[in-house]
């Protein structure tokens, strides 16, 4: 039976991620030890964040299952609930319901393959979870390429971690910003362009792409040019949703329910659907 009751959690830490202050990462710890132990998620899944008096919103889980004891969510201040969340303080109580959705195929299609992760803007959250998971299980996967872009250097999330990852020789990291910026000596250019330059051959590979629709649209042609096919590419859809359990119908794309059948789909699956996402 479904439970719509959120688990009580406390805000353990709040980190402002971006220069505009619009993105914050919330570290949440369970109030109840049994619930903490029972929680099991895979990268790519999401949860409902619950604020009493405000509502519930679907947010991708930014922490990897290997980071035990807490959950991370990076939230963009957008409307009613996200604004209220941005005003919360450390130590305050809120709720988490989940994990929900299917997640990336870390144990199936991705196993033993080269992984290309392509992220644009703050859609990088569940891909952070994925990368950390892959690095913790490094021997299970082939070459890992991580391409991530933001508008400006100050809009990049997880900056300390990006520096750590850059030092590793088992991950091929490409961080880019849209335009030249003072103090920035890294890559400059849009994600699709960079992806076209650095993407490896599609042989025995899988790509995970998350970002604004326009980025996804322009990232595909350069990949296709070097032989990538739709069933090697995984995307994550976002639709307005309420229950997160496949009942309330809000997130339907044709017969498909994003919350239950997704949010992760292969591009082959997405192309068969009516364009209602």
């Amino acid at each position: 039976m479904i439970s719509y009751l959120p688990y009580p959690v406390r805000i353990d830490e709040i980190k402002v991620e971006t220069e505009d202050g619009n993105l914050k990462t919330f570290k949440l710890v369970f109030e109840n030890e049994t619930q903490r132990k029972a929680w099991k998620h895979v990268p790519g899944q999401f949860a409902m964040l619950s604020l009493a008096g405000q509502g519930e919103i679907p947010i991708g889980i930014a922490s990897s299952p290997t980071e035990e004891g807490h959950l991370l969510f990076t939230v963009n201040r957008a409307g009613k609930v996200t604004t209220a969340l941005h005003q919360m303080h450390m130590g305050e109580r809120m709720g988490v319901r989940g994990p929900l959705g299917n997640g990336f195929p870390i144990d199936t299609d991705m196993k033993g393959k080269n992984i290309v992760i392509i992220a644009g803007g703050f859609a990088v959250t569940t891909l952070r979870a994925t990368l950390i998971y892959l690095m913790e299980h490094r021997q299970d996967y082939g070459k890992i390429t991580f391409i991530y872009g933001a508008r400006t250097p100050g809009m990049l999330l997880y900056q300390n971690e990006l520096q750590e990852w850059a030092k590793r020789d088992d991950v091929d990291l490409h961080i880019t910003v849209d335009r030249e910026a003072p103090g920035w000596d890294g890559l400059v250019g849009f994600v699709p362009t960079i992806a076209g330059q650095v993407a490896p051959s599609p042989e025995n590979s899988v790509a995970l792409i998350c970002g604004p629709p326009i980025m996804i649209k322009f990232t595909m042609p350069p990949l296709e040019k070097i032989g990538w096919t739709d069933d090697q590419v995984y995307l994550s859809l976002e639709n307005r949703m309420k229950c997160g359990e496949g009942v309330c119908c809000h997130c339907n794309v044709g017969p498909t329910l994003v919350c239950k059948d997704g949010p992760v789909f292969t591009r082959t699956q997405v192309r068969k659907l009516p364009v209602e996402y």
Partner: protein
Amino acid sequence: MKVFRLSQTELDNMVQGWSQNRRVYRPAAGRQQSTHADCAPGWERVAASTPLTLPPGPSKTSVKTFLFPQPETMQTYTLKSSDPDKGLMKEPQKATEKQIIVGLRPCDARSVKLNNLPFQEDPFYQVNLARTVMVGFTCSAMCATCFCDQMGGSPMGTEGLDIAISQVDGSFIAEVLTPVGEELTAEIRLTPAEDSEINALAERRKNSPQADFAKLDVLKGRDLNTLYKAALWQTLGESCINCGACTFNCPTCYCFDVQDEVVRGQGRRIRYWDSCMFPLYSLHTTGHNPRGQKMQRTRNRFMHKLKYFPERYGLFSCVGCGRCVKDCPVNIDIREVMSDLLAVE
């Protein structure tokens, strides 16, 4: 199966007897008396004085209000800073007392089973289903707006009912179909129906319109995207005003919204009926709306009933009660939509 014959007085006495110590509801007779806060529009608690006669066709509002009531409290909480439980979501005590619904038609009884497909794992729906007893009235005649037979039901159908009551020659024949129905009828002394009466009922059933979905079933095999792109949606979308009347009165429209409500520091999270006819339904916070056009929303409603739902659950999400046909202010008729869809190549 036990079968009884009752006169109008015996029927009224039986139902009023149940209402002594249980909640018994019936379609409202005449203008509704809103004396019972727990009763949805279109229905009333059975009172001692009103005899149980029903106009032909389904009740004004459907039976879904008893299984999927609105609003339904999902959680409660306090926001008082002095309370250590501040912000802690708690599940409300679930109602367990039986509710007996008298006078629903076979179409509505089927809708309960259809809705049970998406609500299979829904704790609130399941609790309500377990406490609801359905005493239905079969139909001697179909209204001009009825098409239950095309949707896999029939006017004399008993699917989903605990007791089915049919009017035969001035008296009532009650077929007791489930153990719960037996419990209810065991409380009273009733006259078993004669064999001739049982035979007459069987004859009536045989001659009534039978479930026939062969024609519509063709839709299940049709390509989804071809139906989705059909020209008919443009025309239909132009006349539909997206008022949502059809979705609210539909027994098998089951989508819901969830909202928080706080009064003087005490809050509750509630769910209530929503409608895919409304632009807010699918609006992203970014301003992007996957179904931003009126036509797309009209299409979603019909495609959901006739293609998306069958694709997920194997059955059409429509019981042919005809309420949407009656209530649509611009005279959209789902039967025409179905035949237009069947004609799409």
